């Protein structure tokens, strides 16, 4: 079998980054700078490689068999890989305080780059086995990363919860994939779609239905969708903050990509089954996430529950597959593009929010929301960035990016004929605002200590965090005024 090494270039770049980070740590032990610099360069190189390979004309494919190719690096894969690499870059920039706090930098960067490798391969995976392997490569390093805060019980707990739920969900996905394979004899997406299209030739329809449901529910774990969502709050709260930022953006994006690939490519003829399932998952996810977030007192837990709710918005456009009008080729592309666009908008805003939290908290955990009082006076710029990110997550100006994200989803849902889901999304936005506005207001309330003239010390702001936060916030502002950039990328990914 001939292997197209050029198509694999982005994956090589990511994997090489991981190895080089480890080697550099061996050569210069205990020094953070070189390791971080090498990892950042590697991530950037991965993004460039992905863009070059993906944009270089026809899609490159490899690992082909008569049933189809397992690895296709097309525009979709390119967009996914670029976004992944950029998010990793962001997470690295926000890592300095955590690494100063005693987390071993060599292992940290190695694990992060290893996870990036999984993300890069994921976008190009075109059979169920490659997909599951890619998702696992993406997730496995995160177990260790979540538990990296030494002698912190919450961190160890978080790692165990994450590990257990992840293993269960992988088992669920694998069981579903096995049932599909048993019913059709195919694992490649195209072959699977062809086999599933001929329903009367399938041995047992219920068996296939169970397989479909299991695959999607299992993958729903990655995006923290109901019913596999409860791991997110304790895991996010226990993990080091930059890892949480990565978990809630890149890792979540990985789940979205996996669900999209499976739903649209492999299970295309079964949209009438996946559509209602995804609609219910989306509606339940956003409603549960928002309602529980209302009661949170800890910052990261609140952001975690809000990100559960956001996962619901990301999945919502796919719910329109439940309607015949949403299953035409044109409508399908619009819906997929809306989902991808929302995911990208969300990733930018969420990264900005976590960047601001890290800038305020240093290597500590997220703390109580009440700890954030007086921030508006002590660190007005960071408070402004956090407010902007929260407004965006709530979908309101001045966070125009978030507004356009909501608009994209509602527009796609109405074009797809799912008016009720659009109304559910819209009403959830109102519930969401209730807690976002509470947090944002807290920033500008004076703490009793400050009101009496006392000042609280704030950890020193490393330049990498400052630059990272400034860049992410700026990106958030720019895509707010030029949302067409993100919509165009999403269209590319959706194959228009």
């Amino acid at each position: 079998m001939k292997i197209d090494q050029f198509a694999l270039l982005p994956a090589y770049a990511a994997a090489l980054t991981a190895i080089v980070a480890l080697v550099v740590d061996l050569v210069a032990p205990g020094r953070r700078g070189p390791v971080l610099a090498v990892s950042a360069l590697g991530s950037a190189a991965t993004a460039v490689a992905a863009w070059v390979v993906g944009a270089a004309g026809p899609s490159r494919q490899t690992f082909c068999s008569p049933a189809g190719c397992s690895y296709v690096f097309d525009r979709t894969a390119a967009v996914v890989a670029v976004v992944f690499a950029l998010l990793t870059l962001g997470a690295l920039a926000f890592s300095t305080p955590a690494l100063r706090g005693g987390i071993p930098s060599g292992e940290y960067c190695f694990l992060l780059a290893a996870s990036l490798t999984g993300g890069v391969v994921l976008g190009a995976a075109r059979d169920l086995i490659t997909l599951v392997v890619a998702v696992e490569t993406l997730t496995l390093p995160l177990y260790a990363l979540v538990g990296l805060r030494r002698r912190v019980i919450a961190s160890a707990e978080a790692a165990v919860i994450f590990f257990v739920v992840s293993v269960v969900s992988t088992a669920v996905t694998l069981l579903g994939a096995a049932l599909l394979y048993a019913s059709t004899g195919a694992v490649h997406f195209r072959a699977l779609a062809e086999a599933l299209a001929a329903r009367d030739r399938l041995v047992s329809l219920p068996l296939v239905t169970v397989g479909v449901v299991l695959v999607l529910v299992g993958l729903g774990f990655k995006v923290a969708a109901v019913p596999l969502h409860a791991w997110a709050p304790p895991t996010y709260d226990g993990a080091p903050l930059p890892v949480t930022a990565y978990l809630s953006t890149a890792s979540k994006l990985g789940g979205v990509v996996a669900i999209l690939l499976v739903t649209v490519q492999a299970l295309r003829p079964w949209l009438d089954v996946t559509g209602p399932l995804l609609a219910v998952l989306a509606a339940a996810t956003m409603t549960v996430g928002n309602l529980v977030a209302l009661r949170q007192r800890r910052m990261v837990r609140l952001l975690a529950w809000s990100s559960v709710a956001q996962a619901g918005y990301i999945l919502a456009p796919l719910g329109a597959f439940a309607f015949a009008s949403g299953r035409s080729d044109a409508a399908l592309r619009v819906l997929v593009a809306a989902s991808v666009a929302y995911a990208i908008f969300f990733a930018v805003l969420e990264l900005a929010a976590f960047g601001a939290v890290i800038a305020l908290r240093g290597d500590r955990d997220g703390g109580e929301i009440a700890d954030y009082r007086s921030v508006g006076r002590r660190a007005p710029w960071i408070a402004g960035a956090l407010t902007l990110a929260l407004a965006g997550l709530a979908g309101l100006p001045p966070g125009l990016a978030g507004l356009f994200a909501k608009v994209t989803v509602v527009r796609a849902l109405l074009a797809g004929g799912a008016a009720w889901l659009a109304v559910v999304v819209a009403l959830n936005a109102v519930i969401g605002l209730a807690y976002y506005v509470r947090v944002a207001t807290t920033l500008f309330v004076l703490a009793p200590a400050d009101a009496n003239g006392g000042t609280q010390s704030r950890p020193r702001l490393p330049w990498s965090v400052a630059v990272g936060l400034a860049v992410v916030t700026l990106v958030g502002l720019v895509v707010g005024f030029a949302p067409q950039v993100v919509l165009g990328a999403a269209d590319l990914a959706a194959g228009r």
Partner: protein
Amino acid sequence: MSAGQGLLVATLVFPAAGVVAAAAAPARLDRVGRLAGLVAAAATFVASLLLLPHGEPRVPQGAPIRPWHEIDLPWVPGLDLRFHLGVDGVSYPLVVLTALLTLLCCGYTLWRVPEPGHGRLLVALLLAIEVGILGVFVSLDLVLFFVFFEIVLLPMYAVIAIWGGERRRPAARKFVLYTLFGSVLLLVGVFVVVSKAGTADLIRLTGGGGLARGTQLLAFTLLALAFAVKSPLWPLHTWLPDAHTEAPTVGSVILAGVLLKMGTYGLLRVGVGVAPEGARWAAPVLGALAVAAIVIAGLVCLAQVELKRLIAYSSVGHMGFVLLGIATLTATGTQAALIGNVAHGVITGLLFFLAGAIKDRAHTGRLMELGGLRETAPGLAGLLGYAAIASLGLPGLAGFWGEAFAVVAAVQRGWMALAVVAAAGAALAAAYFLRLLRQVTHGPAVGKLSRPGLSRAELLSWGPLVVLALALGLVPAVVLNLSADAARALAEVVR
């Protein structure tokens, strides 16, 4: 870019620049920041005045909307969003009113900053609100309209939550959640229309744009609910009294003076214009609710014991007249709604300025604890009497025309019963305003005022409103002539 197009963009760019300038000023240069904001507001006002009719509109004769000035640029093709602005007879008076009230509020803030200070930020937020409101009035693209509609929410929340009265937080939260509820319905309604019609161009959409009846009914229901929250229309008004009462003086002025007009303007231009079939279907319900609002607000006002709360509830009644005018779907009704909007903005703006001044001096807003203002502060008492009489609709002052024409339009439409009840509601307004005057200005003097006289800044910021209330009452043609063509064209479309 022609001069008119430049002016249109300038009305949005000037206040936006003011936001940046005022917010960027360091804390020790607070006054400079406020001054920069004031300059931006003044420039905006001048630009808005200059938007007067000029030349022949691009849109041909007979079109439902014929903007004098228009600019149309692509922005986000992926969302059907174009940067399409225009000003015509319906929007022009409101644009000028918005620019004027913001200018007066910025000037007032230069003189007096409510607790807890940071006046430059207050000015920045007022200008941000102005961007949103002006944008709503000049948008000719439905999606753009929605975007501007949303801009207002968080700045207004911040104004109430930071500079408001004692119970500001709950009031601000209620305001922002309630009005966001309206906004999201607007979002759904807008895209119901856009996805079915395939365009977001308001000029092409006005008149139904070939939408099916079912779509129009759904769209109008969603849009009317959205705008009814903002206007507000009884029974969706409950956010208003708290927000108005707790907001700082300038916040109340902007809130009552122009923010509510986004609802009535939206109902007229977007609701009625885009879904005329739906409007015809729902008109009787709207009319009945509007009259209910007039009567109920009047009765509630009779029992109010707090100054700002009373004025807030009176707003519900006045907006009831405006909505009644819109609901008749006639040219007269549309005209009544327009002049009613402007008059209410001028008079209620003035009333809230006065209420704020009284509360500042007496340190209470309870009617029981006020009294004898006529003796202790004759200037203030005189102005309050003037504004109250203007508000209750005395002929010769601005408040009269909107209410009278609304009742006339209801009669023309054949809604005799509604017209009679609405007229009786106007009498209620006279009752509660006279009760207000009896308690506050007459009677024995209770308590002491800290500054009985009027400062020059107060006179400067109130003067234009005092003059306008009289001028609009004597020469309503100023507004009516501007909007006559537009109102007739709209009524034609709906028929």
